[in-house]
């Protein structure tokens, strides 16, 4: 793979009320930022599960951003406070088992901080670019299951492992 032309793949989990709206504002303000980051909208930063991040890495993401409302600004009063505790832990855990802290980044971006959103995305993209592709994780994919093409030549059909078993409870 040509490292020069490599573009990182970044997932951003953002809350509907602050950061998503902040991203909208970045758009209406015509601010420019790299196109590597794709947003997955959830209702509140409190509803983002750490497994989502692992799933993103499994699906070939090189970095993940999690963003919500500033403390005390949560649309649901306290969702982001619970999230903050959760991420503090998860971040330390990932760091301990060898995933650099820069791979998973966090921010509080309010609905009025379009500029901040653009800056954060730019910074995260640059950070991840500097770190290079997350080959360590991707290798785990390639060694056992499907081959993940490093640079898809044609946009592939999304594949999503769905267990055909019905839930048995």
């Amino acid at each position, binding site marked *: 793979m040509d490292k020069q032309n490599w573009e990182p793949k970044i997932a951003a989990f953002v809350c509907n009320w602050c950061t998503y709206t902040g991203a909208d504002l970045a758009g209406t303000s015509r601010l420019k930022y790299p196109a590597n980051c794709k947003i997955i909208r959830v*209702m509140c930063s*409190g509803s983002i599960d750490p497994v989502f991040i692992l799933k993103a890495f499994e*699906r070939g993401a090189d970095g993940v951003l999690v963003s919500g409302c500033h403390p005390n600004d949560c649309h649901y009063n306290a969702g982001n406070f619970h999230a903050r505790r959760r991420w503090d832990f998860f971040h330390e855990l990932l760091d301990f088992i060898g995933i650099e802290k820069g791979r998973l980044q966090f921010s509080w971006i309010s609905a009025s901080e379009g500029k901040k959103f653009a800056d954060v995305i730019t910074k995260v993209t640059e950070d991840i670019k500097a770190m290079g592709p997350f080959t360590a994780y991707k290798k785990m994919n390639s060694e056992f299951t499907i081959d993940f093409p490093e640079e898809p030549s044609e946009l592939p059909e999304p594949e999503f492992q769905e267990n055909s078993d019905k839930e048995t409870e």
Partner: protein
Amino acid sequence: MKIGVFICHCGENISSTVDCPRVADVCRTYTGVEYSVDYKYMCSDPGQNLIKDAIHKYNLDAIVVGSCSPHMHERTFRNAAVSAGINPFMVEIANLREHCSWVHDNIEAATRKAIELMRMAIEKVKRDKPLTKIKVPITKRVLVIGGGIAGIQAALDTANAGYEVVLVEKEPSIGGHMSQLSETFPTLDCSQCILTPRMVEVHQHPKIKLMTYSEVERVEGFIGNFKVTIKKKARHINEDKCSGCGMCITKCPIKKKAYNSFEEDLAFRPAVYVPFPQAIPNIPVIDETVCTYYKTGKCGMCVKVCDREAIDFGQKDTIHVADVGAIIVATGFKLYNIDKKSADSKYKGYGEYGYGKYRDVIDGLQFERIASASGPTSGEIKRPSDGRVPKKIAFIQCVGSRDDSKGISYCSKICCMYTAKQAMLYRHKVHDGEAYIFYMDIRAGGKMYEEFVRRAIEEDKVKYIRGRVSRIYEEDGKYIVKGEDTLAGMPVEIDADMVVLATAMIPQDGAESLARTIGIPYDKYGFFNEAHPKLRPVESTTAGVFLAGACQSPKDIPESVSMASAAASKAIILFANDTLEREPVVAKVNEDICAGCFYCMKVCPFGAVEVKDVKDINGIVYKEVAYINQGVCQGCGTCTATCLSKSIELAGFNNEEIFAEIAAL
């Protein structure tokens, strides 16, 4: 599943950096996509028609629109989908404008990203489930807590709109603090004169059920369906029989054992009393703590004089239950007490002003009573200690307010105005009297307010001194007020005959426990929190509970009244429908696998999680699981992420959908 994909050019807003036809072409190749098209303005009428026609023509089950932010047009496209016969929650929006075309320059990169965003939305929509809005029936009755001016206004407005009202007041009469005031700023009209007709109106209104001397004990349920338990305290007077003649009051031999709290402890009241002559309802209350009958079993003077046989010593507290659809909280305020002992532990007293030991150092409400024509001095300004007419009064503002060291950082907002009014009233009544006002800033924002303060200074020659008072001493029956004129840079000492302290407004007693009973948040002082400081100032964060008046923050009468009307109209808006429709984005527990750790209950900001017993075939409870009340849940999903066994799913954003999005990254 048949999916339709619609890519909007948004004029050139999207198409200038995103190759829309190419996006549509690529989307067409994805499994499940039956139809894919791009169009100049999807949100326009022809655009919407395009969608509707496609739905009909291709029998689509779900659609994905690549357009502007869902915050802009999600509703438009959902409505279009509904009118074409598919569920509104089978519509996904990919944000190709704000999140893509507007923020990127490179056409290739932007187009790629647009395709990926579409891909994520398509994967999500495949897993979307049709949802129906949650319908909750509404009990069209309002509970108003607090019978001050805010509560009265809210009750009258709601009742006049044709809805039933239960008005609960903890004192024996409605009227609140406004009934205690002498005159009101900035018009100097008599407070009683404007209030009393409203009180009577409440009493006579067929839609209002007035419950005085009562308190709210419990609140269960949720918006549209609250169940309220109210304790009616025993008056020891049969309300149906009593005619309000007042014979019992005049004949009661206990005259000087209890302070009259309506007169702010400046006078006494008998053991059987009405708080004030214009009380509504005009039915007395027997105070068990001082009544001789309750001490010795003798006396019974009131029984003898009552020709209606209304005295009932054996009366007990009664419990009433009311079903209501909305609650308006209007519990108002009380004044901070400078006393060392009676001041709440949260606040410290004012030792430098004597901790209330000086009898002629009084607070604003006491001065109102002294200045009131119906007050203990019949409106003559006299000193409580010796009844002399004070020739010099020092008014001190911000006592407690804006004072971090005493525990209150906020501005009580109304003191500037009422102090000016009181000084003015004093100067009108005692022509040779001198009035000094110690202030920090004058906050006179309001119609005719600044003019009013200037009038006090210019016409009534009230002397304003900018500076806080450090100490008050008593010397030879005079009160030495030590201050500093910070504008002149000179120390000031005034030998006043009387000192009036504009003490801070703090929440009414029991505000915090009431808030916990209802389940609404409050700030560190005990003022109830509004849902949004700008856009939802009269709603609490608990749906169906509205706030009115000074229980939310210090307020004057016009503000309280307008807030009360706003709260009433919020309730009326709620009642305009027979059932309540809510976005179906709520969490649901899979009871079979819930382990009952109740972490969800701990994290839920709305208290929507309840304990549910799961019973076996024999009806024996074998486990406890979480149950989420759909009426209360606001759909944040914090519980879903906290749940360790993943037994909770948030409708509309369930984990399957999000995993699909991640997979399609």
